[in-house]
């Protein structure tokens, strides 16, 4: 009973519930025949939102105003540059990955450098950076779609133990993120900073160092997601990250992470990512037009957040 009570009050339960309802409504169209296929597709595509969402969650946890809008362009730059470098050569997989991660580190550093040096709100700083990074992506490969190395193309589209490989990668990253948040000093620090930066400072927390690492972490996850997505979809495109801007924020807040910071939630990101994919599938399956589909998506998002009850008491 207490268990049930606790579960019903945990902020992530609502996104899971919503995902389940939508999943159920979708498979009912085919009388359950599409269960396996739909589930695998959902896990596959949710995996990318989960990876970028986790990075975004760390940033949002840093407190009001913290958000990384450079996620889409970082994905694009990392994907295009890595694929260009690997140039369909299986031997170049690791260097490609290293370069993608380095790009993430670079963008993260640039983001925080601007936030810190110019003392501008992160939302504006990362927006500016995203324009520059997008330009860099255009400049490096002019929108050419280069195919990924065959091993990577196969790996990212294959399943292991009935689970899509990309979902397994997302799971590993999620567990790592959960461990960071719940068990480590670093996790405590970002939560403290999110609740009150002055208090964190006075408690001896290296505030700048922590925020810096967090922005870099977010950008690295974005570049990793870009690398995987480019391999998965058979080539990087200049616009491949664009839908992950709103998506990365939506899955974080729908997943029960406090928008005001200080409180994050890894399981919720899974529920929300699955939900965001499934809701589009469901509405497509029911054959609704784009207008109705958009309206329904919006109303469902609002209903979920209403059910979840919104801000935590005490949070601003």
């Amino acid at each position: 009973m207490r268990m049930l009570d606790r579960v019903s009050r945990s902020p992530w339960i609502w996104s899971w519930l919503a995902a389940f309802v939508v999943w159920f409504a979708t498979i009912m169209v085919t009388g359950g025949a599409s269960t396996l296929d739909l589930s695998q597709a959902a896990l596959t595509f949710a995996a990318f939102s989960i990876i970028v969402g986790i990075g975004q969650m760390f940033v949002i946890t840093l407190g009001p105003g913290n958000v990384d809008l450079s996620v889409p362009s970082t994905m694009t730059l990392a994907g295009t540059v890595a694929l260009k470098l690997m140039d369909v050569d299986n031997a170049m997989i690791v260097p490609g990955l290293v370069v993608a991660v380095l790009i993430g580190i670079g963008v993260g550093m640039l983001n925080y450098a601007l936030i810190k040096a110019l003392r501008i709100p992160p939302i504006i700083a990362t927006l500016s950076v995203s324009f520059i990074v997008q330009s860099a992506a255009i400049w490096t490969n002019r929108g050419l779609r280069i195919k990924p190395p065959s091993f990577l193309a196969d790996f990212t589209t294959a399943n292991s133990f009935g689970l899509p490989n990309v979902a397994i990668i997302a799971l590993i990253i999620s567990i790592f993120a959960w461990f960071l948040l719940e068990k480590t000093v670093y996790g405590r620090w970002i939560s403290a900073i999110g609740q009150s930066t002055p208090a964190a400072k006075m408690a001896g927390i290296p505030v700048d160092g922590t925020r810096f690492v967090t922005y870099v972490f977010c950008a690295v996850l974005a570049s990793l997601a870009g690398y995987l997505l480019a391999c998965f979809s058979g080539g990087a495109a200049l616009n491949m990250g664009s839908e992950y801007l709103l998506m990365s924020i939506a899955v974080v807040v729908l997943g029960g992470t406090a928008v005001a910071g200080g409180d994050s939630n890894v399981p919720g990101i899974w529920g929300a990512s699955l939900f965001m994919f499934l809701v589009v599938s469901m509405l497509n399956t029911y054959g609704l037009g784009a207008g109705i589909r958009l309206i329904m998506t919006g109303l469902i998002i609002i209903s979920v957040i209403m059910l979840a009850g919104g801000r935590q008491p005490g949070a601003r």
Partner: protein
Amino acid sequence: MRLTISADAIRLAIPALSLTMLLAAVFWLQPRAMSYVGLNLLFNLAVPIALATIAQMLIMAVNDLDLSMGTFVSFVACVTATFLRDAPMIGALILAGVVMVYAVLGVVIHLRNLPSIVVSLGMSFVWAGLAVLLLPAPGGQAPDWVRALMTMKPPFAPMAIVVSVAIAAAAHLLVMRSSLGVLIRGVGGNERSVERAGWSVLAARAAAYGLAGFFAVLAGIALVGLTTSADANIALRYTLLSIAGVILGGGEFIGGRVSPVGAVIGALTLTLAGSFLSFLRISPDWQIGAQGAILIIVLALRLLLNRVEKREKGR
């Protein structure tokens, strides 16, 4: 005798200075801009942005954020180009209705203690869907009176300048001078103390949202007046632009610190920054990046002026 400059004045001086500097740079690059027609061309598209920025500012004044501003303005534009022209009564009713929806959103957000970011994210889908339903393909036409209003040629100063000044003045009176404005900013500053003084914070938030909806409706109408027709994606960038405009104008995300005049100046600055870039003739590859760079430069300017001001104060 020490000269004390109020924080509000500084909040304004900085954006005003950056606008002036940018304008000087534009005139230097393109002397043709220094004319009645030139100024109008430079600034007329800033009018709807300024209105949307004021709307966003009202929401930010109560510590919330509206991520649906762009889709909402697009939706209003679609209504303006269809109903408001073909059936003015129905059009006006729809627009009044959506202003009410904004007020209701304020109520819901307050009552259920919801994060405005998520609710407005959801609403952005709703507005986009309605806009697509209304105009599946771009089209419609601006009502003649709107078109006439946006292309009028007042004496002395071009329409864009006159209207911008009028918007700034009206918003200043409303937000900075009136009791309602004080109340709205008070909610942003310290909700509890407003409540303890016996006010209804709920009503204040509803008023802020309703006013924001009203200004956003004006933005949509003004936009159609300039473009002559609408489409469902016409103003998507207004979401980020309006936030950036408020910040450039010296506003802050929380704490109810906003400046309507600054917000209008911020909107003008953003518009001008785009022109400045195209006058620079950068390689197309880097034109997008240059937009980022100019944002950074304008904000760096703000920092520089802040520093100078602090030194003044420290003396």
